[in-house]
């Protein structure tokens, strides 16, 4: 049996329309922290059952190992909705980094 690529060759490229479309340019990531120690850390709870517990556990480990300046817990309106621009700005104003988590 002949393999598809052998029979069809490269000519298929010109004859078919790619159904996947182009992709948006990836979102630019904000600058990473050079060091966690001494940073004020935001924790963004997505409202799922154990998200806050997981975030606080992570923050506890980071504080014990690296020493945080402080932590602040924030909450999305629900897991199915994005954080509002106002909430994102508040976190940016009050923290140097933020962690979010989802945990059923």
């Amino acid at each position: 049996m002949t393999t598809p690529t052998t029979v069809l060759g490269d000519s298929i490229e010109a004859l078919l329309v790619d159904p996947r479309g182009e992709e948006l340019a990836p979102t630019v990531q904000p600058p990473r922290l050079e060091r966690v120690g001494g940073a004020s850390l935001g924790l963004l709870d997505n409202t799922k059952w154990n998200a806050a517990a997981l975030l606080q556990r992570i923050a506890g480990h980071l504080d014990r190992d690296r020493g945080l300046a402080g932590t602040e817990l924030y909450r999305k309106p629900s897991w199915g909705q994005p954080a509002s621009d106002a909430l994102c700005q508040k976190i940016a104003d009050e923290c140097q980094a933020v962690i979010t988590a989802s945990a059923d």
Partner: protein
Amino acid sequence: MSVMHTLATAATGDDQGLLRAATDLHEALYERGWAADGLPVVPPTRELVDRMLAANDAVAQQLLLVVPPRGGLATMEAVAANCVMAGCRDEYFPVVVSALRAMSSPPFGLAQVQATTHICAPLTIVNGPIRGRLQMNAGAGLFGPGNRANAAIGRAIRLVLLNIGGGLPVTGDRSTFGHPGKYTYCIAEAEESSPWEPLAASRGFKAGEDVVTVFACEAPRSISDHPSETGAGILRTLAESMADKGHNNAYLMGQLAIVVGVEHARTLGQEGWSRRDVQEFLWEKARLPISTLREGGLWGIQVWPEWVDRHDPDALVPMVAEPEDLIVLVGGGEAGRFSALLPGWGSNSVSVSTPMGVSGELACRLEGGGRC
């Protein structure tokens, strides 16, 4: 001469070669991942895609929406390619475009619908004369196979969500179980069998207008009520079936759809029940006590109206916040005293209706970084 024939004769020069090339082409499309739902697709040839765009006066590079989670740019051309692959005739294109436009409305929450662990899938409901022009099925076997328009339109929408949106299981779609409606999930309302105005008219559109409604919901669950000879009897059965702490509505509210079977609708119509009467009755009767709701389900995250006293174990909680959150339409075969329940995803996604058309206010062009 078709592209397929050109390919085949170029490769082999005989009819046996034509069949072999067709088979090979299917395999090639699988290899590319374009047959993303796992079924064979029609090759999206430039010829067929251009013909569909021309037939609908669509501009190839016009951006319809950005499809999450991949962030794929659903241009008219890319959407048409998926329509061709799904088996759509040219005239199905406006329905697919309109459904996608409705899904791009923020209240629908497409990113969340695509990625959630929940079982919901977007259902497309078609109202208006276009149902007849496309020979869509609103009757027997409503949610099943056998009708090209229903099947191909629903499949084209899914292929867009898979191919452009990257909503593939595990990587882009975390649904625990998936959904049979993630192959195709498109119906027409049986307006001619309904005692009420069309669903779209109840949502502010003119009667006789072609409208597409999208709603993220579970698979239909059949509700039997054979002996009841009154509308109230039928509705009590429906209400008792709706009051179920296993679906998201019980905790997250949102919306829930009821496809009233034709026989049930006839009984309700003969007794003078309006759509609003049905909504109010079901909203009043389909309730569960806090004492039941707090033992399982989604207890711990309740999106309930303020008036629900969540500390009172005997307090009764409706399945949706308001009667109008029950989406009531008519469909299915002439025979059978059944209706169907389609629980929603909850308050995270709201159904959206949009007038049929290739152009529309939610559409935008590929300018400014491709964002609408």
